[in-house]
Structures are given as C-alpha cells and as structure tokens.
C-alpha cells in the first residue's frame, strides 16, 4: 500500500496521514485511520510529521483562559492518590532521593531553622527539583516578603549562575534573584511580587550568564521547578 502512488505523486499512506492530521476524515475512515496509527508505527510517524507541519498554524488562534473550575474538574477526574504507582514507587524519585538525601535533609533543616524566626502560618515552602534531583529548598516569609533558598543537590555550572524565577498562574516568569551553590541566599521580594507569591505558584531555576538574565526572562535552560505550598 505504501508503494501506491496518488496521481499527484505522493504515497497513499502519506496522503492518508495528512488527511488524518488535518482532520477532514469522518466516520469509518477516521476510525480506521486512528486505529492504524495506534498499531502501525511507520504510519504513526507520518501522522506526527504532518501534525508538526500544521501545528505552527495554531499560533493564529487567540489564547483564551479557561474558567478556574476546569482545573478543579481535571484534578477531581484524576485517579485517587495511592501509595502504589505514585511518587513513593517511582524509581527516579528514589534514585534522586538516595543521591541527594543527605544534602536535602540538611537543606530542610536549614529551612526549618530559618522558619523558626517567624510565624509558621506565614510560611510557604518549595523543593525545587529537576532531572530527579532536588536542587534547592526555598522558604518564603510572606510577612517580611523574603525568600530563603538553601542549596541541596545543586552542582555548580562552570560558566553560568543559577537564577530564581517566580511563575504565577499567568505563566510569565518574574526574576527574583541569583542563587549560590555553596550557601543559603535570602532574597527580598519586590512589592509587586509579594502579591504573586502564593500557594501553588511555581519557583523555577534557570542557568544564566554571570550577573543574571538581562532580558527580564530566562535566557538559559530551566533546570528545576517546584511548587510553593503552605506549611
């Protein structure tokens, strides 16, 4: 079948993949093509390639924020969290943990000591992880508008420095400040950031040139992220 050429010169399979990716098929034709993509890797790859060719067109579609209850419905539709199959059984989690356990425990302790200096109900904490490693532990004192970041399993990069970002629900990163691989850093939050540092906001660490990003957005790779949760 793959050798059958359309009168225009492309294999029939390739045209079917294009039609499926574009979405013009219906009924049995669509069902058969979807089933084939699930079973035939070669055909599935052709479909992927067409999806890739067409996807940039979606840039023309205006973004529309869904109402907040959609996330609640998604969270409610996920299978209930059980020990089996969850984080506790994840090999990567334990791998990362065994490498980083000592450093992580130390970082937590440092975080708790820091927390000891203010009322715990005003505290948020995030473990900032990436590639199975817990790189930093951040604790936020919302009353004072400061964030303390303790290095855990972070290995310094020869040419770049770690920079901390806040990613509120709008998805746009805001720079908080530069971190150190060898010591705890306490950063003051700009007043406009204090309002955004909340439960479920995300902290991310990117690698930047010395002195940090000059564009206001991460320029290097984002190596780790973590969600803020109240203690």
């Amino acid at each position, binding site marked *: 079948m793959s050798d059958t050429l359309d009168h225009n010169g492309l294999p029939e399979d390739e045209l079917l993949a294009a039609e499926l990716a574009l979405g013009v*098929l219906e009924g049995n034709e669509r069902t058969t093509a979807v089933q084939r993509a699930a079973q035939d890797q070669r055909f599935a790859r052709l479909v992927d390639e067409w999806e890739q060719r067409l996807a940039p067109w979606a840039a023309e579609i205006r973004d529309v924020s869904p109402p907040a209850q959609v996330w609640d419905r998604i969270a409610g539709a996920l299978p209930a969290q059980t020990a089996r199959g969850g984080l506790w059984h994840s090999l990567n989690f334990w791998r990362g943990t065994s490498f980083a356990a000592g450093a992580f425990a130390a970082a937590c302790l440092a975080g708790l000591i820091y927390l000891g200096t203010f009322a715990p109900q005003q505290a948020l904490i995030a473990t900032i992880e990436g590639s199975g490693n817990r790189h930093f532990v951040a604790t936020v004192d919302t009353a004072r508008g400061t964030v303390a970041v303790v290095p855990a399993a972070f290995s310094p990069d020869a040419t770049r420095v770690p920079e901390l970002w806040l990613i509120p629900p709008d998805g746009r990163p805001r720079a908080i400040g530069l971190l150190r691989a060898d010591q705890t850093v306490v950063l003051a939050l700009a007043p406009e950031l204090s309002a955004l540092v909340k439960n479920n906001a995300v902290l991310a660490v990117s690698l930047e040139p010395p002195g940090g990003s000059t564009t206001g957005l991460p320029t290097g790779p984002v190596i780790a992220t973590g969600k803020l949760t109240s203690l």
Partner: protein
Amino acid sequence: MDLESNRSLIVAALGRIPAGDRAALQTVYRLTSAKLFGVCLRILGERAEAEDVLQEVYVTVWRKAADFDARRASPMTWLIALARNRSIDRLRATRMNRNMTPIEGATDIADSTATADDALESVQEHVRLHGCLDGLAPHERAALRGAFFDGKTYDDLAGRMNVPLGTMKSWIRRAMIKLKACLEQ
C-alpha cells in the same frame, strides 16, 4: 515568555507526570491551557463543550505523558494535536444534533489576531508555514483553513464551497502535496 525556557519548563513537567506528580500536570496546565482552550473553542464554538473537551485533554495528558518523546516533537505540537483531535472527535459525535451554520467569524480570521508568541512555537516555523500557505491557490488555502480551524470534513467543505466531494478531495490532497514540498525546500 521566552520560547525555549517555556518549552523546557513544559518538557520537564511532562517528564514528572508518569511518576504521579499532580503538581507537574498543573504546571503543564498553567503554561498551556489558554492556548489549548483557544484551540478547542475555535473548533467547537461553544464554551461548555470546549471546557469538557479541555478536561478530557488534560486527563489524557495525565495518562499518556509517558508517550511524549521530546526528541521527536515539540511539547506544544503534541498538545495542540491532542486538543484538535479531541475537539474533532467531539464535533463528529455531536454533529447530528448541531445546526450546520458556521461558527461566528469562523471563515475569516484576520492575521492581526495572530499571537505567535503565545503559541510557544518558533516564530520562524510560523513564518515558514505562512510563506508556503501563501503559495497555494486561494481555494486550496480556504479549504485547508476550514479543516484546520473549524474541524470541517471533506463533505462539509464541499458543501461550503459548493463543489463535488471528489473535487474537494483532490483540492486538499494537491494542497497538502504542495505544502509538504514547499516546507521541505
């Protein structure tokens, strides 16, 4: 937001989902749901339907995140294809009950509404695709647009553009062949 950093945030979060990390799914949702809701809404034309499908899309992301291969596709390509496919399935399932009047404004999206930066895709890819689409005949481009943005079938498009079904099929097939050749240049 910086395209590459956003892409790596999404890839990193997708990578944590198979271990059962709900916060990772929430990160993916936070970074991508406005684009995907836009896609669902564009195809389905009704908010309630689009919200339902958006929910299905992210529950599917939760189940299938392990299938995503960052070496083969960009995360947005994967997510947009998922949102389009789910929306088209819903559209086909409900089409018997729908009146077939076009969605308001569906036939003509001005290019001024383009938000390439928000699509998280490379601007270069978008420009390249546009260059190639501009090289198609107007009727071919209109047919592809109707399929991509409104989820129209061959049948719908033949009716909309008032040509026989066979003619519509060969328009679209010829357009896809030209598009591929142009993108590969």
